[in-house]
C-alpha cells in the first residue's frame, strides 16, 4: 500500500490572474504544479473549455495546490458510464 497514494485531479486556473512574468500559460501552470510536487506531471492542459490541466496528486499536494494563487478549483477525477 502506497503511503501517499496519488489520484487524478482536474485543476482550473484563473488565467486572467496569470502574472506577467510568464510568457505562456502552460509555464504558469507548470510552475504552480512544481511548487507543490516535484514529481507530478500534467496529463493534459485544457485550452478551450477550461483554463487548467489534469495531473496526479497526493492529498497533501492537493491542499497545497488549493492555496496557490490563481487556482480556482481542484476537482477529483470522476468516472462516467455509457448509457
Amino acid at each position, binding site marked *: 500500500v502506497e503511503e501517499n497514494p496519488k489520484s*487524478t485531479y482536474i485543476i482550473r486556473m484563473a488565467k486572467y490572474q496569470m502574472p506577467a512574468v510568464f510568457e505562456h500559460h502552460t509555464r504558469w501552470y507548470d510552475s504552480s504544479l512544481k511548487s507543490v510536487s516535484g514529481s507530478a506531471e500534467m496529463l493534459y492542459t*485544457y485550452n*478551450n*473549455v*477550461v483554463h487548467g490541466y489534469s495531473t496526479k496528486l497526493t492529498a497533501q499536494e492537493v491542499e497545497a495546490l488549493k492555496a496557490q494563487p490563481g487556482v480556482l478549483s481542484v476537482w477529483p477525477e*470522476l468516472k*462516467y458510464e455509457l*448509457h
Partner: protein
Amino acid sequence: TTRTPEFLGLGKSDSIYPESDSGSDVIIGVLDTGVWPESKSFDDTGLGPVPSGWKGACETGTNFSASNCNRKLIGARFFSKGYEATLGPIDTSRESKSPRDDDGHGTHTASTAAGSVVEGASLFGYAQGSARGMATRARIAAYKVCWVGGCFSSDILKAIDQAVEDNVNVLSMSLGGGMSDYYRDSVAVGAFAAMEKGIFVSCSAGNAGPSSFSLSNLAPWITTVGAGTLDRDFPAYVSLGNGKNFSGVSLYKGNTLPGTLLPFIYAANASNATNGNLCMMGTLIPEKVAGKIVICDRGVNARVQKGSVVKAAGGLGMVLANTAANGEELVADAHLLPATSVGQKSGDDIKKYLSSDPKPSVTILFEGTKVGVQPSPVVAAFSSRGPNSITPEILKPDIIAPGVNILAGWSGALGPTGLPIDDRRVPFNIISGTSMSCPHVSGLAALLKGAHPDWSPAAIRSALMTTAYTVYKNGRNILDIATGKPSTPFDHGAGHVDPIAAHDPGLVYDLTVDDYVNFLCALNYTDDQISGLTRKEGSCKAKKYSVTDFNYPSFAVNFQSTGGSTVAKYTRTLTNVGPAGTYKVSLKSETQMVKVSVVPETLTFSQRNEKKSYTVTFNAVGAMKPNSNSFGHIEWSDGKHTVGSPIAFSWS
C-alpha cells in the same frame, strides 16, 4: 438505423431536408468508444471535400491509421491519459489504443447520428431495411473517451476541448456521470464552452428510469434526451403445455427448437443458490436443466449472459421474465440460444403454471419483425425521469427520441451480445438505451443546422422542443410503458421529437451566452464557480437575477405545500423565425389548484427575427400534499405553426 427515419417522417422523396451540400458542411463530434471505420455506414460515396473549416485529425494507433478516415469519417482521435493514470497502461491485447471501437457502442451512436445509406441492412434478418443516420450527409468525427474500464472525466474534458478546436458543429455524448453540480461535471463544463462557440450539444438522459430524480446531464445548455419506442417489434411467443400463449420479443437466430413441447423449469428450482432465479454464472444445476427450457428472472447480470448460462448448463432455451423493476417493457436480444423476453405479468402467469403443473412444458415461436405496432412511441421504462435534482426550475428531460431496439452499425471486434463467447460478427446490431436516442437528436440537430445555419444551439433546441408531440394521432397522450398510463413532462419533457415540424417552428425561445451566465448568477453561484465555467472574471453584476426569467422553452413551477396563495411570474421572449403573423395563446392545465394567465394573449410579429415577450402568472390557490405534481401546457399558434411548452407544477 432502419425504420426510425420513416417513423420520424424523414426519407421521403420530397423531403424538406434535401440531399443538398448545405447539410454536408455540418460536422458531428461523437464522444464514445471510438469507431469501426470499415462499417458501410461510413462510406463516403457522393460526399464532397472535407469542410474547409475542419481542423481535426485522424490519429494513428493500434489497428488504426489516417487512411481509415475519409470524407464521411473526417476525424478520429483517442484520449486515454486519464484512464491510464488511474488503471495503468492499456492492454492492447484487450483493447485498441487508438480510435478503433472494440465495443460497438461508439459505432452504433455515430452511425445513428450521421451514417450513410446502406441498403439491405439487418441483424440476422431482423429489422431489415435501408439503414441510414439521421443526417446522411453530415460528417462524423469520433472522439474515443470510453474504454473497457470506463470513461474518465479528464479524458472527456480534453476530448471536448479538442472537438471545440477542431470545429465540430454538433457534439453527441451518450454518457453520464451522476448528478454533480454543473461546475464539477466535465460534460457540463465542456458543453458550456462548446455552446459558447455555437456548438449544439445533445446528451443522453440516462437509463435509471422509471425512478424519479434519476436524470443525468441536466445543465440547461445541454439538450437532454430520453428514450421512446418505435412502431416495430420482434415477437417471439411463449406457448405453454396448457395451451396458453404469451407475447415476448427476441432477436434469436440459429438452430430452431424441435416442433414439440419441451420440459420447462424455473431457474430458482434448478439451483442451490439463493439468487438461482437470476441465472447467474455457475448457479444452475446441469442435471436439472439439461434438455429443458428454463425461465430466468431479469436483473443483476446481463440479459444475454443469462442465456449463455442456461446454454452452458445444457438448457435448450430460455424465457426471460421481467420483474417489477422493468414491468412490461420488452427489450429484444440476440441470444445465443432460443430465448424470448416476456413482461412481468406474463412472467408471473407462466411461473404459476410451472408451480401448478407436475409436468410443465413449453416452446417458443419466433415470428421475425413486425412493424406498425401501436401505440408508439411509448416512453421506455429505463429512460431516466425528472424532476431536475440540481435546478428544479428547469424541466428535464428536454425531449424523447427513438431509443428501444435500434439497429445501427456495429464493431467487427465482437458479437452482437458483446459476450466473449459470442464469436458471431455482424455489421449491424440492435440495442437499446438513451445512448441510442441521443444521437438521433444529434443528427436531427445537424439537419436543422444545415437548413438554418444562423440558428443558435438554443434556437435549434427550441425548434425541436416546441414542435415535439405529446399525443398520438387519436388524440390520446403518449403512454409510459413503466406504468401503462399517460406519461408526464417529467418522463417525456416537451414530447417526442418531430423533425419535420421542427424545420419550420415559427417562433423560437433563443438564449445567448449572457443569458446562461445570468442563469448561473440567479443560482447564486460564486464568482469562482462561474469563472470555472466561463473562464472569465466576475460575471455577476449588482442586479437582481431570476431563474424564472431564463428563456427556456418549458416551465417548471415549484410551490410550497403549506397552502395559501402563492404567485409566481415567469417571463419569456419569442423570436420570429418564420413569416409575419399573429400568434394567440392557449392554456391547458390538469389542476384547478393553480390559476394560469398570460399577458399579452396575442403576439404580432411583422418581420423575421423580431422579438416579443410575454409573462405567465401561476397563482397557487390552495394546499397540496408535499411531493405532489401536476402538469399543463402553453401553446402559441398562428393557425399554421404551433409553439408548445410543457408546464410541470411541483409542491414541496
